[in-house]
């Protein structure tokens, strides 16, 4: 199993280590619930070095990405600006979801999932045919996500010590969904929790020192368990759970990430998505809030007047104190349904799949 450059730090912080996509990662450091609340109320940090950073260089990188991705990198014109996109096969199935940063006209950076690494790389290399583009794996970079209402302020207070002798204004002034290279670091105002914060790429040799500084400043380490409940509350999809190669963006709540215009842009999967849309998308992706006591889990069956559906990810929401879920249900499903919870039908409300953002409930419970 692979270990990140922060493995010893996880052990020192009493991390309970588990196998995650071939990496030995901390699931929690004692209490997943406390870690979740720490991020919603203050600031916490996640080692996400298992994620895959890829740099694409070359004169034809823009048209390459315009074919590769369902979202359109032409939307990116400010250096450092990020875009969330699906990478589709020709059938419209999702190979992976990713973030792409525009760095320069001939240079983009992608962050893809660890579990899909080999498959993504094989597909992206195959798609390189005919384009003057070079793909480089950035295995020299670790990645820390620092998230929470106090995250940016706490990080900015420490940066002068970590990156001495350079101007840090660009990091202080970052707008949401924009990143900036600072020496050999890359700091982006992005995340996977629904809170403000940074995702920071740091050379392996420097990441342990950064971690120790952040820890000393009261930024608690947060495990992958809380990362999952935080992203679910925020209504952010998880690849392999909420969508995969067998599902299109249109049935995964990701229609908003498909750039249909300009109509002349031919991207992988476009024809399949257009056919799916023309035929009428039979399912929709929704949020569920359980009425009563219990916990929603992935693969539970959903029953509504219009037919049956399935929970793709579910949990107990630590912020709201109720069970919440994302589910794929018939398109005609109304605002209530039932879920088969351990053999019993329990009522649930159907809502938009966004439950907590910036510490604020998005639904009434």
């Amino acid at each position, binding site marked *: 199993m692979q270990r990140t450059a922060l493995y010893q730090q996880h052990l020192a912080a009493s991390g309970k280590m588990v196998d995650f996509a071939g990496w030995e990662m901390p699931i*929690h450091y004692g209490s*997943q*619930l406390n870690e979740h609340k720490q991020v919603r109320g203050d600031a916490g940090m996640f080692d996400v070095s298992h994620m895959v950073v890829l740099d694409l260089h070359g004169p034809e990188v823009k048209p390459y990405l315009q074919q590769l991705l369902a979202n359109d990198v032409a939307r990116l014109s400010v250096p450092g600006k990020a875009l969330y996109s699906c990478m589709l096969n020709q059938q419209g199935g999702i190979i992976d979801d990713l973030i792409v940063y525009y760095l320069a006209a001939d240079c983009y950076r992608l962050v893809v999932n660890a579990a899909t690494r080999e498959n993504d790389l094989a597909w992206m290399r195959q798609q390189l045919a005919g384009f003057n583009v070079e793909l480089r794996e950035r295995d020299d970079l670790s990645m820390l996500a620092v998230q929470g209402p106090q995250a940016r302020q706490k990080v900015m207070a420490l940066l002068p010590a970590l990156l001495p002798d350079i101007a840090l204004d660009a990091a202080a002034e970052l707008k949401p969904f924009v990143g900036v290279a600072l020496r050999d670091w890359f700091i982006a105002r992005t995340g996977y929790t629904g809170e403000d914060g940074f995702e920071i790429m740091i050379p392996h040799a420097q990441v342990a020192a950064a971690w120790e500084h952040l820890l000393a400043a009261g930024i608690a380490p947060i495990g992958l*368990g809380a990362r999952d409940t935080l992203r679910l509350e925020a209504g952010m999809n998880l690849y392999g759970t909420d969508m995969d190669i067998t599902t299109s963006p249109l049935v995964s709540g990701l229609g908003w990430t498909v750039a249909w215009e300009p109509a002349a842009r031919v991207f992988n999967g476009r024809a399949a998505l257009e056919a799916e849309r023309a035929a009428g998308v039979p399912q929709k992706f929704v949020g569920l809030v359980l009425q009563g006591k*219990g916990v929603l889990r992935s693969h539970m069956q959903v029953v509504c007047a219009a037919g049956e559906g399935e929970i793709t990810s579910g*949990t*107990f929401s630590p912020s709201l104190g109720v069970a919440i879920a994302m589910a794929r249900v018939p398109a005609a499903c109304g605002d209530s349904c039932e879920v088969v919870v*351990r053999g019993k039908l329990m009522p649930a409300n159907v809502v938009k799949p966004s439950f907590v953002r910036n510490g604020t409930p998005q639904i009434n419970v």
Partner: protein
Amino acid sequence: MSNIPADLKYAASHEWVRDNEDGTVTVGITDHAQELLGDLVFVELPDVDAEFGAGDGIVVAESVKAASDVYAPLTGKVTEVNEALIDAPELVNSDPYGDGWLFMLEVEDMDMMAGLLDAAAYEDGIEEA
């Protein structure tokens, strides 16, 4: 490592049993079990006066990770349940042998206590697992 009090009896399925010496026992899950489950978020308790056979599922403990059945370690009738867990399931994590107890059982045949594990045998069992 996990705490296994010597004065309790245990089932291999990770319940502890305290003899109240009045024909009833108090039952909870072990420190080892709560650690495996992670933070509890919901405990489904049995009805008072309900009867269970040894090995029957009697409580559902739902953690952030998964739902797990807790089994009746002995045959008997429920006399009391820990209602504090309805609002504070985390007591099972913070104090599994004290405030995190689950239910009390009026036991049909106290001689069956002899069939449960002592602390040493339970510890051996979880080390092998």
